[in-house]
């Protein structure tokens, strides 16, 4: 056995090959007029229409039971949908979080009523979710969470502030990580998860946080004695830490962890058309080798998830190595092509490069900072 097993992913079955062909045609038809600059938004692109079309065509909730609107397909078939969506720059934001982590968490921990009412609508591309984890004083240190939910009969009264919630201003729900008993000093104990309806929660105000690119993805959610029905408790009260760790495992494993800048690679290749110098050839060759291997590692993780193995260590490694790839791509591009990036340019290359340079810093922050991930990997190796 290898020191850190990454089992070889099985060869693509005829079903997987057919699905890829069919889905590429779907994307081609859906995304015909999307500009390179728009495509470079990657999973920050948000389109209700596109998500509904995905749901209608049966590409969401791929692995879930049919009973809940899912399609009972394999983790590999879902991986095809995810990687092809990202590689083509599809605006997946309106179903991304729900399909990736909120839905699977609800499927795993939710009540029958929650599953019946929410999952089919996610699978139909009708419900958008945000993530309710980070707080002003608790980012990487999630266990320091302060947002408090106090039980009051058949409801919870919620007080506290969440930050960095992508799409909270557009989405329908978040899964809120909060404290239902004790104090932040209790760390993992006394935490729970609540399903919060963003469109219908008295006492909740949502305020934009504008990022350095001038874009509005992030939000602050401020809960002031906000009312959440007790039936919206997800899983068990007090079991929030285990549940949120399970949710993070869904979040860390996918190809979005190295494909964020793929549109820049595609535009760079267009700029290099006809170039036959060793610098261009060797740099692109090396980047391509790295990408192919990352993709293989990610497919290994999918194989492990399919076999119900614990892939937390492997997923963290893929995210760590993957973030380096997507984040350093602009530097390699700059060694090959001189171009001043321009965030308002209609020119494909200058506009895409600007968007990527602006957004790249976030890729080693979101979903667990590089430093946290490396700590997790080191612990997985038996240190500490």
């Amino acid at each position, binding site marked *: *056995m*290898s*020191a*850190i097993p*990454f089992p*070889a992913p099985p060869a693509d079955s005829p079903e997987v090959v057919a699905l*890829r062909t069919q889905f590429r045609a779907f994307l081609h038809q859906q995304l015909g007029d999307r500009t390179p600059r728009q495509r470079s938004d990657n999973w920050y692109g948000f389109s209700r229409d596109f998500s509904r079309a995905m749901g209608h065509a049966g590409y969401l909730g791929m692995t879930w039971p049919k009973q809940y609107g899912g399609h009972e397909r394999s983790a590999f078939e879902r991986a095809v949908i995810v*990687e092809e969506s990202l*590689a*083509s720059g599809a605006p997946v934001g309106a179903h991304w979080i729900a399909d990736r982590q909120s839905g699977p968490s609800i499927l795993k921990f939710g009540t029958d009523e929650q599953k019946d009412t929410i999952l089919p609508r996610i699978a139909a591309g009708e419900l958008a979710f945000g993530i309710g984890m980070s707080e002003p004083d608790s980012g990487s240190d999630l266990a320091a969470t302060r947002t408090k939910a106090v039980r009051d009969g058949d409801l919870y009264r919620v007080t506290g502030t969440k930050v960095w919630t992508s799409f909270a201003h557009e989405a329908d729900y978040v899964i809120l990580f909060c404290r239902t008993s004790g104090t932040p000093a209790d760390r993992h104990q006394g935490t729970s998860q609540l399903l919060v309806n963003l469109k219908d929660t008295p006492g909740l105000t949502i305020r934009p946080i504008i990022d350095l690119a001038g874009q509005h993805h992030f939000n602050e959610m401020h809960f002031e004695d906000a009312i959440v029905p007790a039936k919206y408790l997800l899983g068990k009260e007090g079991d929030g830490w285990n549940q949120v760790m399970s949710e993070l495992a869904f979040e860390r494993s996918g190809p979005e962890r190295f494909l964020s800048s*793929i549109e820049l*690679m*595609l*535009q760079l*290749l*267009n700029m*290099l*058309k006809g*170039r*036959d110098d*060793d610098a*261009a*050839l*060797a*740099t*692109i*060759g*090396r980047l*391509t*080798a*790295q*990408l*192919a*291997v*990352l*993709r*293989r*590692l990610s497919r*290994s993780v999918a194989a492990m998830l399919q076999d119900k193995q614990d892939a937390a260590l*492997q997923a963290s*490694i*893929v995210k*760590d*190595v993957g973030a380096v790839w997507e984040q350093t791509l602009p530097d390699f591009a700059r060694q090959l092509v001189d171009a001043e990036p321009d965030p308002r340019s209609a020119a494909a290359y200058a506009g895409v490069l600007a968007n990527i340079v602006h957004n790249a810093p976030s890729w080693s922050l979101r979903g667990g900072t590089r*430093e946290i*991930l*490396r*700590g997790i*990997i*080191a612990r*997985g*190796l*038996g*240190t*500490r």
Partner: protein
Amino acid sequence: MLADMIERLLDRHLDDAAQAQAREGQWLPALWAEVEEMGLPLALLTEDQGGFGLSFEEAGEALRLLGRHAMPLPVVETMAANQLLAAAGLPLAEGAAGLARADDLKLIDGRLTGTVPRVAWGEQIGCLALAVGDRLYRVPRSGWSVAEQGTSLNFHPRPSLAIDWAVDASAPLPHCPLAAGATVRAFQIAGALEAALAMTLDHTATRVQFGKPLQKNQVVQHELAKLAGELACATAAADLAGEALARGDTLGVAAGSLRAREAAGTGAGIATQMHGAIGFTREHRLHLYTTALWTWRDEFGGQVFWATQLGRAAITAGGQGYWPMVTAL
């Protein structure tokens, strides 16, 4: 099963004294006899060809193990050469073998002449599986003399060979020896990185500085995580190259080989740094692995050779064709 046998063999016959002898350029006849006795030179052949009929995973594990023990003799070269010879329908090697490609050799009146650069243990091997153009030649030991001595970074012989041989065994080339060599090297690199990570974990757990094991420091933990990432990439890269070689896809071999070569350098660097000064000496066994990694990453076509092939294919594919090309690797 095979892995256990290899482990036992290497534990018994490959100690530090044997490694030191190999560094002096001395062949290890007792070790080679054991390798032959076990049938390792035929390990990559199918059962029909008289091999073990190993699964892909078993073959990969065997190759990685040879890297994990820094096997100094050209065992993987012999395995790959025999696979090539068997695929071409030529007689297998007697004893150890090498494999090479040299397109500037001349074939005049049935006589092959020219120089093949830097063949591992070129004086000691019995046979060379040599590609020239689209043909494979099975050159016996009597078909060459040493043109120039050479030494690898881990101090094993790499003489350049002056071929002068009346061709009596050749066939159409089934696959490129450089691709085959690059693939087995990728597996060796993954294996050597496994050893380097294990040693580094052990060293940083037991070495105490400032009153605590090195491993208790976050900066050290982060370097360990990066080393684990390089190991993961090398392992996946070797598998990628192995699968690509089996289906005759040179670009896939290029991708896997390139990433493994890169991991060799980065991984060796981290492992040495984490060991501190002792990792820079021959007193600690780490050098067996770091010098092997630095050797293997530049053999069977270099970084530029493989990267430019893959890069040219990518630039030709352009923005439109790139992703389909990547998913086919």
